[in-house]
C-alpha cells in the first residue's frame, strides 16, 4: 500500500495537468511503466486462450492488441489487470513481477467496453472514486477531478448521473476515471465498440491526444483494424492465443508477415504465384494467368510457389495496355464516394479488388468492360 500511495501523492503534487496541445510528438514527460510479458499462458481445460505470449512494452508506449474474437486479446488484458491469474510464465511491470499483486494494488487505470460507471454515483463521484480509494485528501481530490473533467470536456456534466448521459459522454467519464490517478498503465478493453462510427472516430483522436498529454503506457484492445492503425505506436496482432506479428501500424499494413495478418488488417488481394528469379529481396513472379511481375520480400526466398499481397489501392488501372499490364474483366463496380471499388477477374480465375480515387477523367466502368491493371515491385509483398 505504501509504495503506490507515495507514488500517487508525488504525481498529484507535481505535474498537475499538462495542457500540452502538441500533437504527433512524444509526451513531454513519460510516466508510463515498461511491461514485460514472458511466456504468459492461460488455459481453459485443453484450450489455450493465451499461448505462451512474449511481449515487451516500452514506457509510455501506446500498444494495441488486435485480433478477432477468441484470439486471446481480452484474456491477455485481464491477466495484466489481475482479473485472472496466469497458468504459466510471468508479467513484469517496471521489472517487478506482479502475479502476487491484487488488481486494486496494481495502480492501473482501466476503461471497459460497457463503461462500467457506478450508477449510484454522480460523474464527479465516479471520477473521484480512485482518488478516494488512494486516500488523496478532499481538496486535492476536488481539484484533480475538476481538472480531469476539464480535459475530457465534461465540466458541464459534473453533477449528472451516468444514466442521464449519452454513450459517448459516458465513455468519456469512464476514461476520466481511468486517468484521474495519472496511472502508469491504462488498460482499455474495446472501449469504443459500443459507439457509433462518427463518435468512435472523434474519441479515437481524443484518446490519441490524451496519450500524448499524460504519458502513460496504454494497452488498447480492439478487433477493429482501423482503430488499431489510427491510434497505436505499435500493434500486436493476435490469433489463436499467439502474437502473430508485432510492429508499427505502417509495417503491419505494408509488410504483414502472413496471410492472417494480411487479410485481417485492411483489404487485400492474395495472389498465388511462382518465383522465377530473385535479386536480393526483390523477386520476379508469374501467376496462373502468366502475368509476370516483381515483388518485394522480407528475406531471400527459395524458388517455389508463394502468396503475394497487393493492396487494392496500389493497383493502377488503364483503359489501354501498357508495357507491364495485364488485362482483367470487370465483374462489379461501385461508387463509394471519394473512391471507386472495382472487382475484376484476371485470366485464370483470380479475382482482384481495386480501389481508386474518383477523378473527373475516369468514368465508372461497366460490368464486362476490359481494363488493364499493373503494379510495381514496391506495391507487392511476398507473404511467408
Amino acid at each position, binding site marked *: 500500500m505504501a509504495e503506490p500511495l507515495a507514488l500517487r501523492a508525488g504525481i498529484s503534487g507535481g505535474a498537475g495537468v499538462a495542457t500540452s496541445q502538441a500533437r504527433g510528438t512524444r509526451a513531454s514527460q513519460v510516466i508510463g511503466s515498461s511491461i514485460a510479458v514472458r511466456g504468459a499462458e492461460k488455459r481453459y481445460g485443453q484450450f489455450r486462450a493465451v499461448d505462451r505470449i512474449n511481449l515487451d512494452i516500452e514506457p509510455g508506449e501506446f500498444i494495441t492488441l488486435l485480433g478477432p474474437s477468441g484470439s486471446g486479446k481480452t484474456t491477455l488484458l485481464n491477466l495484466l489487470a489481475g482479473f485472472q491469474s496466469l497458468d504459466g510464465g510471468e508479467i513484469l511491470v517496471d521489472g517487478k513481477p506482479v502475479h502476487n499483486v491484487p488488481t*486494486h494494488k496494481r495502480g492501473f487505470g482501466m476503461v471497459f467496453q460497457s463503461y462500467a460507471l457506478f450508477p*449510484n454515483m454522480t460523474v464527479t463521484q465516479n471520477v473521484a472514486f480512485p482518488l478516494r*480509494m488512494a486516500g488523496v485528501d478532499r481538496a486535492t481530490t476536488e481539484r484533480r477531478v475538476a481538472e480531469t473533467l476539464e480535459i475530457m470536456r465534461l465540466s458541464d456534466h459534473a453533477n449528472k448521473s451516468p444514466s442521464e448521459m449519452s454513450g459517448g459522454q459516458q465513455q468519456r467519464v469512464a476514461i476520466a476515471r481511468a486517468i484521474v490517478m495519472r496511472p502508469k498503465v491504462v488498460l482499455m478493453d474495446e472501449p469504443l465498440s459500443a459507439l457509433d462510427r462518427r463518435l468512435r472516430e472523434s474519441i479515437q483522436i481524443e484518446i490519441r491526444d490524451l496519450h500524448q498529454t499524460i504519458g502513460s503506457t496504454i494497452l488498447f484492445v480492439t478487433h477493429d483494424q482501423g482503430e488499431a492503425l489510427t491510434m497505436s505506436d505499435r500493434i500486436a496482432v493476435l490469433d489463436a492465443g499467439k502474437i502473430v506479428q508485432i510492429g508499427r501500424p505502417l509495417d503491419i499494413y505494408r509488410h504483414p508477415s502472413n496471410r492472417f495478418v494480411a487479410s485481417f488488417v485492411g483489404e487485400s488481394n492474395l495472389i498465388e504465384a511462382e518465383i522465377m528469379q530473385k535479386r536480393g529481396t526483390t523477386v520476379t513472379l508469374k501467376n496462373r494467368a502468366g502475368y509476370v511481375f516483381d515483388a518485394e520480400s522480407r528475406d531471400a526466398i527459395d524458388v517455389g510457389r508463394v502468396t503475394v499481397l497487393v493492396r487494392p489501392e496500389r493497383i493502377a488501372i488503364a483503359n489501354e495496355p501498357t508495357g507491364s499490364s495485364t488485362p482483367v474483366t470487370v465483374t462489379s463496380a461501385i461508387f463509394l464516394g471519394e473512391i471507386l471499388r472495382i472487382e475484376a477477374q484476371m485470366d485464370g480465375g483470380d479475382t482482384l479488388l481495386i480501389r481508386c480515387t474518383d477523378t473527373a477523367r475516369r468514368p465508372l466502368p461497366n460490368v464486362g468492360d476490359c481494363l488493364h491493371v499493373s503494379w510495381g515491385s514496391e506495391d507487392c509483398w511476398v507473404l511467408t
Partner: protein
Amino acid sequence: MTTISLSEEPRHQASSSLAMKLKNPALLLLPAVAFLSFIYLLPLIDLVRISISGPSWLTYFQRVFAVPLYWESLVRTMQISVTVAFLCLLFGYPTALLIHRTRGITRALIATAIVLPYFIAILIRTYAWMVLLGRNGPVNKFLVSIGILSEPVQLLFHRGTVLLGMTAVLLPLMVLTIYSSVSRLDPGLTRAALASGAGPIAVFWRVLLPLTLPGIGAGFLLVFVAAIGFFITPTLLGGPGDQMFAMHITQQADSVTSEGFLQALGVVLLLITLLVVAIAGRFLGLEFIWGGRKLTETTAGKAVPAATSGTARRSFGSAFADAIGWPLLRLFGMLPASCGTWTVRLMGGLVVAVLILPIVVVMIISFSSASYLTFPPPGFSLRWYEQFFSDTNWMRAFWTSALIAAVSAFIAVGLGTCAALGIVRGNVRGKSAIMLLLVSPIIVPPVVLGLSLYTLFLKFDLVGSVFGLAAAHAIGGLPIVVVILSAALQGVDSRLEQAASVHGASSLTVLRLVTLPAIMPGLAAATFFAFLHSFDELVLTLFLSSAQLKTLPLMLWGDINYRLNPVLAVVSTLEVLLVVGGLFLARPALATSQKAT
C-alpha cells in the same frame, strides 16, 4: 383482392366494434378476477365486517389491545419476525454472492441446495428440524460424543429453535430475492472498482451494497411479512413462551364464543401485513412482491440528486466519511483479498448445510430399522415404507391430497393462463392494480385467509368438500401461475404473433400454433407448482377440512403433534422426491423465467 379487403376494413371495424372489443385479450382477465372477488376479496371484506359488528365498531379491537396475552403476543411476533428477517439477511446475502461468484457444476449444486428446500413443505422442513434437534437426534448425539454434553438435553421448544427453524424455512426466499438483484449487476462494475484501487471490502461497501439495496429491502420485507403470519414452525418448535399471533387465531377458532373477537385478531394481523407491504411498495414499487422491477426505471436517477442536495448534511456526512469511512475502507482494503472470499464461502456453506442437512437426515431416517426416531439408525430396512403403503389411512390421505391438488392445479392454471394472457397482451388501464390483485394472496397470512374462508364455506356448505378445498388452495396457486406465465409470455416476442397473423392465422390459431408452444415449459412449471402448492397446503386445510376429509399434510400435522415416528420421514422423503422430479422437469422454464424478470 387486396384493395377490396383494404377498403372494406374500416367499415368492417366500425360496424362491429363490439366484436372487436370482445377480441381484446384483456377480457381474459375476467374469470380470474371474478374468482378472486368471490372467494378471496369477499370473505376478507366479510371478515372486516364481522370484526366491527360489535356493540361499538371498536369493541373487539379494544379487547385485542387490552388483554396482555394478545398485546404481548403481537409484540413478540414483531420481535421474532424482525430478528428472523435480519438473520435471513445476514446469512442470505453472502449465500447469494456465493451463487453469483461460483460457476458451472458448483453453482448448479449450490443453487439447487437453495431452491429445493424452497419448494418443500414448511411442515416437512420443520419436522426435519424436530428430528435433527430431538433427544435422539444427530445434534445431541454429536455433542455428547465430543464431550460437550454429558447426556442428551432438550434442544427443542424455546425461542432459539423458533428463530433457527423460521430462519431456515425463510432463507431461500431471501437468497433468491437478493440473488436476482445481484445477478442483474454489470460484472464490469466490480472490475472497474477493483481497477480503481478499491479493495474487496470497499467494492462491497461502495458498489455492491448500494446497488443491491432494493433487493435487500425486498428480501427483508418479504421475509418479514411471511414471518408475521407464521404458524406451523413456531407451533412445532416453540415453547409456551413463544406464542405467535397467528397461533392465537387458530386456538380461538376452536371456540365458538369468540365470534367477532376472532375476526378482529385476523384483521389486526392483516392490517399490519398490509401496512408493511404498503411502506415497502412506497420505496420499492409494489412489483417487489412478485420479483418484478418498477415499470419505469427511475431509481438510478432519483438516488443521485439526493446525494448532491442538502449541503449541510452533506458536509457533515463527507467530513465523517473523510475522517472515518474512507480510511476504514482503505484499512480493510489491506486485508488479503481472500478474507472476503472466505467469509462468503464459509457463510454460504453454512447456509447450504443448514438447508440441506435436515432433509438428508430425514431421508436417511426413513430407511431406519428402529421403531423410534434415532440417528444414526441402528440398521436399515424398508419397514416404514411398507407400513406407509399398507396403511389405508395414509394411502387414503395421499390420494385425497393428490385429487384435491389436481383439481386445484386445474383451476389455478385455467384461470391463471387466461389472466396472464390478458395482463401481458391485453390493452387495459390499471394493469398494475390488476396484477396486484392477482398476486396479493401471496402476502395475506394463510391463517387470516383460512379464517375468512371458513365463514363463506359454512354459508355454502363447502366445508370438508374436495371442490371447496381445491378452490381454496387455488387462491394461492393462482399467483404462482400468473407470475410464471407472465414472465414466460413476456419472453415471447409479440412480433412472432404479429408475423403469424399477417400471414393469415386467426387469433385462436396464433394462440395454438405460436403462443402456447412458446410458453409450454412455463405452463408445465406453473402446473407443477400449483399442484405442489395445494399438495403441501396445511393452514387453509386446517380451517376448511372435516374429520372425513383428511389430506396428507393434515395427517402429518396430527401425527407430528401426537408422536414422532419414522413414517413421517417416509412421507417427507417421498415429498422431496416429488419436488426433485418436478424441479428437474421444470428446469428449462425456471431458467427462462429468471431471464425474463
